[in-house]
């Protein structure tokens, strides 16, 4: 492992193997239900696959972090308890959680299990982090993607936990864990159901002018044939205001903060995270490979520049951004 831990997504056993073979220090994954924030059809691990994946990772010196990071539903808490038991039984190296009830349950069930605070908890102050550390023994905090690099540096100075920051992949513009756009239109959200824009509510219609994407029947965007597109989420919809159609919340674009790795490392970030459990093995192999090269280059005292534009074609809408890390709008 280099000076910064590289944490990569695994939506399936094939993706987990591809990530580790490409140089991931850790992989994160979820079980096949609503207890994790990527609850898509055909994705994720069953108990047996998870145990095999942990074994595969450990034999190669990598760690497996299991996301149980949605918020437990009243009356349905047993499902979250079962996921915690499965992850612990499989030999996971850490559980990533956001819900107070899930954190408390894991702490009581297995006091030695490492707890990482999910980005879904949106902890962005030293006081909030201290609460999670003192109450549940949280060892690492995944910081929200709405924080700037200087804000993260300030936070680390006063943080009693390790800090993990997203550096590549999809972006949420809302305070994470508190976005209601998807549930407003479809009745399901990442926070509660593990899906933003649930696929059963998404449709694409081919027209003479191009492709129209819809969520629960509401048009989100109209893309001319062959033009770049984004995910069919409400935050990436194009809306008419003052007679002009524009992306009002967020343009379809992906985070790529490879150019900020040195700054994040100097600030004391312990681990960097790649988003995209829903993507696939081609994606994770390429992104992991590029970030492995970049971290290794930094550790040799070299620039990350040669690797910074290797991944543009994987970006949503074909465009990359450093997002809130270079925030200039507040």
């Amino acid at each position, binding site marked *: 492992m280099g000076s910064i831990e590289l944490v990569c997504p695994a939506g399936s056993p*094939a993706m987990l193997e591809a990530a580790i073979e490409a140089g991931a220090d850790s992989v994160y994954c979820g079980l096949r239900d609503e207890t994790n924030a990527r609850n898509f*059809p*055909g994705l994720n691990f069953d108990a047996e696959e998870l145990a095999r994946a942990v074994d595969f990772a450990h034999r190669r010196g990598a760690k497996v972090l299991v996301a149980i990071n949605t918020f437990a539903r009243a009356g349905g808490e047993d499902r979250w308890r079962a996921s915690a038991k499965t992850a612990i039984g499989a030999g996971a190296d850490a559980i990533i959680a956001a819900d107070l009830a899930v954190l408390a349950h894991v702490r009581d069930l297995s006091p030695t299990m490492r707890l990482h605070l999910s980005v879904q908890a949106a902890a962005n102050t030293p006081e909030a982090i201290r609460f999670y550390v003192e109450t549940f023994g949280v060892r690492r905090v995944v910081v929200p993607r709405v924080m700037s690099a200087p804000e993260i540096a300030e936070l680390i100075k006063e943080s009693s936990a390790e800090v993990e920051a997203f550096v590549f992949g999809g972006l949420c513009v809302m305070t994470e864990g508190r976005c209601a756009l998807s549930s407003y239109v479809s009745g399901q959200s990442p926070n509660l159901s593990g899906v933003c824009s649930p696929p059963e509510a998404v449709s*694409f219609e081919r027209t003479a002018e191009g492709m129209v994407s819809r969520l629960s029947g509401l048009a989100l965007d109209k893309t001319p044939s062959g033009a770049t597109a984004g995910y069919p989420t409400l935050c990436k919809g194009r809306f008419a205001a003052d007679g002009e159609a524009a992306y009002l919340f967020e343009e379809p674009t992906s985070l790529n903060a490879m150019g900020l790795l040195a700054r994040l490392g100097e600030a004391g970030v312990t681990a960097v995270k790649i988003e995209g459990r829903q993507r*696939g093995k081609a994606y994770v192999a390429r992104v992991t490979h590029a970030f492995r090269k970049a971290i290794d280059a930094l550790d040799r005292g070299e620039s990350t520049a040669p690797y910074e534009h290797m991944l543009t*074609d994987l970006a949503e809408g*074909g465009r990359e951004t450093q997002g809130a890390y270079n925030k200039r709008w507040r």
Partner: protein
Amino acid sequence: MMHPAEERLSARVLTDLALALRPPVELLLNHAIKRAWRRSANAFGRLGPYQGRHYLIDPVDLPVAFALTLTKDGGTVKLVRRTRRPVGYVAEIAGDFVDLLALFDGSADADATFFAGELTVTGETGAVLALHNALEAADLRLADLLAPAALAPGLDPVLQRIVEWRRAAKRTGGKPHGVH
């Protein structure tokens, strides 16, 4: 430039020719599915409620399309006419043949192909995601799809290179990198 009537005739002739090859092509593809199922039956289970549903895979640059049905016990592929295809598909996935091949063997990223406007999906989006995730888990190789079992291991790197070359050629306007 071809007259529209000539174009229609030419398309019909090509389709008829492709359909004349239906028995060996279907045999090859159905064997490929059987092999993939034997190797990773669990992967097909990832289709969940979409097992047994029909997908239309439409390589827009070929004269015919493919009707794919996967079940927990295997599946079938049939060549179909694009103009006279039956209804009742749960989803339709359309794109250039080489892009679809690269998606099937997992060497291309599906989301990136979609973002780039090189892939269109209609029908039930959940069915498309389930198929994508099942194929990822099945860990298919190109040769599993395009070659008899005995030749697959040796042919795979060659086929990979051809598909990569064709995809690169598409992106550079028909001229692959390094070819002048």
